């Protein structure tokens, strides 16, 4: 996984609640062979509304996406993350973010930041003011966002997630270090509840 350390670029404001993954990555554009993930991102909203923020010239290459509550709820499709990374977005800032999406982001080197409502409001205002022309810097080691006016916003991230992102840790590799524990667990269950370790049509 590509490590995440620091990122500088424009921030695109999608200031809506409950944006769901069906909108982020519509199904008809997500799953075919060699689906063009770059074009997938918000393809329906892009096609339906010329004023949609991603259609505006200043938001053609954002690095940060800013949204409100319950961002990326709904389907677990990881294409919602891939559609963003294909467009160069590596950081989501929102008031709250749906659980499955957060997990998917973490496994793709995408930083998710949840800001409390008052800080979020302040940040959103700066993003609107910057209007794609001025850049923000998200720095993970110091856990701060530096705004175009030089002000800094601190954010929380768990130590484990911070390490995973900074080092680009391979999630599967981490668990495979415990392979012996997994096998011991399986051996124990085979004794105690053999039906769980064997799944065949019996009748």
């Amino acid at each position, binding site marked *: 996984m590509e490590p995440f350390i620091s990122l500088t670029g424009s921030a695109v404001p999608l200031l809506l609640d409950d944006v769901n993954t069906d909108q982020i990555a519509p199904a008809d554009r997500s799953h075919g062979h060699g689906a063009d993930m770059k074009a997938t991102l918000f393809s*329906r909203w892009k096609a339906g509304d010329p004023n949609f923020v991603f259609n505006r010239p200043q938001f053609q290459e954002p690095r940060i996406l800013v949204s409100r509550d319950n961002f990326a709820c709904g389907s677990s499709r990881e294409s919602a993350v891939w559609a963003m990374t294909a467009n160069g977005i590596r950081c989501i800032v929102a008031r709250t973010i749906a659980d499955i999406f957060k997990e998917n982001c973490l496994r793709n080197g995408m930083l998710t930041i949840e800001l409390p409502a008052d800080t979020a409001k302040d940040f959103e205002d700066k993003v609107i003011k910057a209007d794609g022309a001025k850049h923000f810097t998200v720095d993970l080691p110091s856990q701060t966002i530096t705004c175009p006016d030089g002000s800094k916003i601190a954010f929380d991230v768990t130590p*484990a997630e911070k390490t995973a992102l900074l080092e680009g840790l391979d999630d599967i590799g981490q668990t495979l270090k415990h392979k012996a524990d997994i096998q011991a667990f399986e051996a124990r269950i085979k004794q105690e509840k053999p039906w769980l370790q064997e799944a065949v049509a019996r009748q």
Partner: protein
Amino acid sequence: MPQTLFAKIWEAHLVTKRTDGRDIIYIDRHIMHDLHAPIAMQKIVDSGRTVHRPDLTWSSQDHSVSIRLDRDTNAKDGSPLNQKVRVLAKQFGIRVFDIGDAEQGISHVIGPELGMILPGSTYACPDSHACTIGGLGALAFATGTTELEHVLATQTIAFVRPKTMRVNLTGKLKPGVTAKDVILRIISQLGVDGARGYVVEYAGPVAEALEVEGRLTLCNMSIEWGARSGLIAPDEKTLAWIKGRPYAPVGAQWEAGLEGWREFKTDPGATFDREHTIDCAGLDPQITWGTNPGQVIGISDLVPDPSSVDPAKRDAFLHSLDYMGLTAGQPIAGLAVDVVFIGSCNNARMSDLEEVAKIVRGKKLASGVRALIVPGSSAVKRAAEAKGFDKVFTDAGFQWGSSGCSMCAGGEGIVATKGQRVVSTTNRNFENRQGAGVRTHLVGPAMAAAAAITGKITDVRALAEA
């Protein structure tokens, strides 16, 4: 110390703690599907890893399959995704519930139906509706594609332990009110992100009184209010429902299992991080009016007024009204319907089709209405046909299909057209999900049947009396 049902399942599956603090939880049953399995299996190949337990892993062909009635006899071709699943699964020795197989169906429908899911067990599926199986008192994990790869490689999931919530459902449902109405009510009352971060246990007299298939319907929509998973304690009804199913243990193993399965319930005095009580006694059939599953009203209610919502949410509310082609204050009942879809992992089991058959038998679709019924699994299809339901439905003018996700998410191009109003027994009324610009209203199966027959959104109870 008294424990919750969730904690009991978690601890029974805890392998160890990872150095980053995540718990490694063992997965008893893993069913993938055609949208995500090909990518994840390919990544396993590319990384040189192996599938740790192909014998506890299956893949169902559901999302991208055709629903044509002749598909099973017309060669097992299927979509490019279906073909890729076959090739890779064979390489790993993973059983595919393929087109034409007797066990084919939507992953969350067939897992329970085949008796794979036992109370207190764990299940993973790369699909947000994995939580369906919580209706049997089992714990589901919905994964993305990389997590799916993790399950393939390790037969575990590495998770931060979620918080717990209990929703006590009190009262007694009125006749004609179903599990679907209960979950729609829960979401509208507690909000589309009300359960974010939590595993929810649904409890109380309403949960206890529901039949097992209703519990599956209820738990299915746990993700629709953000829950990590949802479940209902198993009881004697659950055990009776599972007994004798193909993959369920038999003989001495069944007997040995029983004692443990009966322990999978929340102990008196166990505490939850949050608790809610919802009285369901006065509940009427529910229907969504908007573009998220929390925008719900009773069938006799009026489309709500923007002034009734928090000013910060007003723009989104107005957008939903506009998208749905509705005006605040108008009655929802009586709206003309273009398409009716009865299907999905939410509401396409045999008990659902029985409800539908009761309503449509001997009747005809209203003129101009297009209606589809797509069974949740091939087994449901056979059972329905054995009872002659296919004839009941097609005589009435419905299209009867082979099992798959179909129009739930616009699979295989089965969609409505812009501006059409669809009454659907599915779980998501998101914009564009059933086609660009399509207006979806979620209801239970009998309500959908009533809409098909009358051509408008209708209180099924009035129809039954008439």
